[in-house]
């Protein structure tokens, strides 16, 4: 916040001097954004839309859902059949969760590619990892609420993991369950927490954006921009319009799923009511948790699997310090770029393997994938930072454009005309 913003009307000044909402709004509108941002930068706005959609549809579903093992499944059928537009609320919420994670993965990989996690943006990145963790917890608990077979057994498998903790594991698991197995107390507390966590996420997002506004956005070239120059543009209307464009595309994909393929991202077994006496042949979480599931099952020991699964997320927090390269953006890091794509492929492969039984070739590949994941962050990044020969960086974000062949000559010509001098020598 550089210059003080003075609102136009006296009433607005009176209000703003007591609660600077108008100043805040002015700051957000004028916020200098690098002019060279590409469409990968629109996913922050898209994610905010996803959160709001989930909260609104979630609260509405909460008006009709009954959190009791005897009625949960039936209450959702009631929503689907009887409640006006109930099927729409439910399918938007369920598919919205998938879209939320699709967007967050794109957002994260954008950060990995362009070095957005590097100084001075480490806190933004760490806040992001915490938001991601809370998203996973929220989604996990939300999936339990319909009380289908996958709800129940997924909850059983994941809560059982805590029993791997030495000494206190059993007590923690019993405490989580509120009983001796996943049952009604578990369901009701998951409902309460599922309702709560998104508001914590909302608060963290405020901090995330606040922390971002201190240094300003990163950009595809990874070079710091001069804040109030022609290298930036005010957020409104330029980035607002760009964000809205990207958002409409995103909504088209989202609503295509909702109206024409609402169950393709889910699992059919969750349309079977939970039965503690019958275990489904393959217990799988939703697709967005599969890579972690694969890592969990790749490690032969129960506790080891839990440790590696959490470590996979913890290593992200260390990322700003693991990547020692002085160059931010992969645009100028030809070797790192290749490993970036290997990481993308590995995560997708791990996701695929997470849905397969952990045996044979699937298990071998899961172990290779897990190994590569950790090697990438713990070994490759520190080494690359030291030894990679990076491409030369431009002087400013505009330079790549000015460096277009022929452009400089054009202006030399114009200048020479003004002077009436020889183009070649300026004499």
């Amino acid at each position: 916040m550089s210059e003080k913003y003075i609102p136009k009307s006296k009433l607005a000044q009176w209000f703003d001097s007591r609660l600077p909402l108008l100043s805040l709004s002015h700051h957000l509108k004028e916020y200098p954004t690098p002019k060279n941002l590409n469409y990968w930068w629109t996913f922050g706005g898209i994610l905010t839309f996803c959160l709001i959609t989930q909260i609104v549809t979630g609260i509405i579903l909460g008006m009709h859902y009954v959190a009791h093992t005897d009625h949960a499944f039936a209450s959702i059928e009631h929503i689907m059949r009887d409640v006006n537009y109930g099927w729409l609320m439910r399918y938007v919420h369920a598919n919205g969760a998938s879209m939320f994670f699709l967007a967050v993965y794109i957002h994260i990989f954008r950060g990995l590619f362009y070095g957005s996690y590097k100084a001075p943006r480490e806190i933004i990145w760490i806040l992001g990892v915490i938001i991601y963790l809370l998203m996973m917890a929220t989604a996990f608990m939300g999936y339990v609420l319909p009380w289908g077979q996958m709800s129940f057994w997924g909850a059983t498998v994941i809560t059982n993991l805590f029993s791997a903790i030495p000494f206190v594991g059993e007590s923690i698991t019993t405490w989580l369950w509120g009983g001796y197995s996943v049952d009604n107390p578990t369901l009701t507390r998951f409902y309460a927490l599922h309702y709560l966590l998104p508001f914590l996420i909302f608060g963290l997002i405020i901090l995330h954006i606040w922390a971002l506004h201190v240094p300003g956005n990163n950009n595809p070239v990874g070079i710091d921009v001069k804040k109030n120059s022609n290298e930036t543009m005010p957020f409104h209307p330029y980035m607002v319009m760009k964000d809205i464009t990207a958002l409409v595309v995103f909504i088209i994909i989202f609503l295509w799923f909702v109206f024409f393929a609402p169950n393709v991202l889910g699992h059919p077994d969750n349309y079977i009511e939970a039965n503690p006496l019958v275990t489904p042949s393959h217990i799988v979480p939703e697709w967005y948790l599969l890579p972690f599931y694969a890592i969990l099952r790749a490690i032969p020991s129960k506790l080891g699997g839990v440790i590696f699964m959490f470590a996979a997320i913890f290593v992200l927090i260390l990322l700003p310090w693991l990547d020692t390269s002085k160059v931010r953006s992969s645009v100028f890091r030809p070797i790192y770029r290749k490993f970036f794509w290997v990481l993308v492929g590995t995560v997708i492969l791990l996701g695929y393997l997470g849905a397969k039984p952990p045996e044979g070739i699937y298990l071998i590949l899961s172990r290779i994938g897990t190994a590569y994941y950790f090697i990438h962050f713990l070994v490759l990044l520190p080494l690359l930072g030291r030894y990679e020969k990076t491409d030369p960086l431009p002087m400013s974000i505009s330079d790549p454009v000015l460096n277009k062949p022929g452009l400089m000559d054009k202006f030399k010509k114009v200048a020479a005309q003004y002077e009436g001098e020889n183009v070649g020598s300026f004499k």
Partner: protein
Amino acid sequence: MSKELKPKRRDFLFTTTYTIGAVGLAAAIWPLVDQMNPDSSVKALSTTEVDVSNVEVGKTITVLWRGKPIFIRRRTKEEIEEAAAVDLKDLKDPEKDSDRAKNPEWLVMVGVCTHLGCVPLDNKGEYKAWFCPCHGSHYDTSGRIRKGPAPTNLEIPKYEFVDSNTIKIG
């Protein structure tokens, strides 16, 4: 610089976009509002059938319909005559008894005081019919408001005799 662009054309595009966008937003908001309206399972419970074969003359039963009490009274001859004899000019809410009870022996009314919603008590009040204790409304043998703050007569729901022993309400 570019502000000299024809303002008319540029504004038309933005105006059209805003308008189309606003239409979409309104269409998106409607389901969020409508989902709170009664759902089809609630609307399906909007009728109920009552067996009145055990109701003696001069007795009232109360049944639940759409969450509200319904008074079903099998009136005595005196009550019917009294109700028919009332001059409409004396009524705050003029209504003929024959319009309220098609079959004069049976009076079917929503037992909710039209003032602020309390349930009136039977066999009480100056008209020896119904009296609401909350604010002192007196109703007569046809359920019409005679004294007190209630503005209108006790509501007559839609009902019919499906046979001589059964009334279908709603």
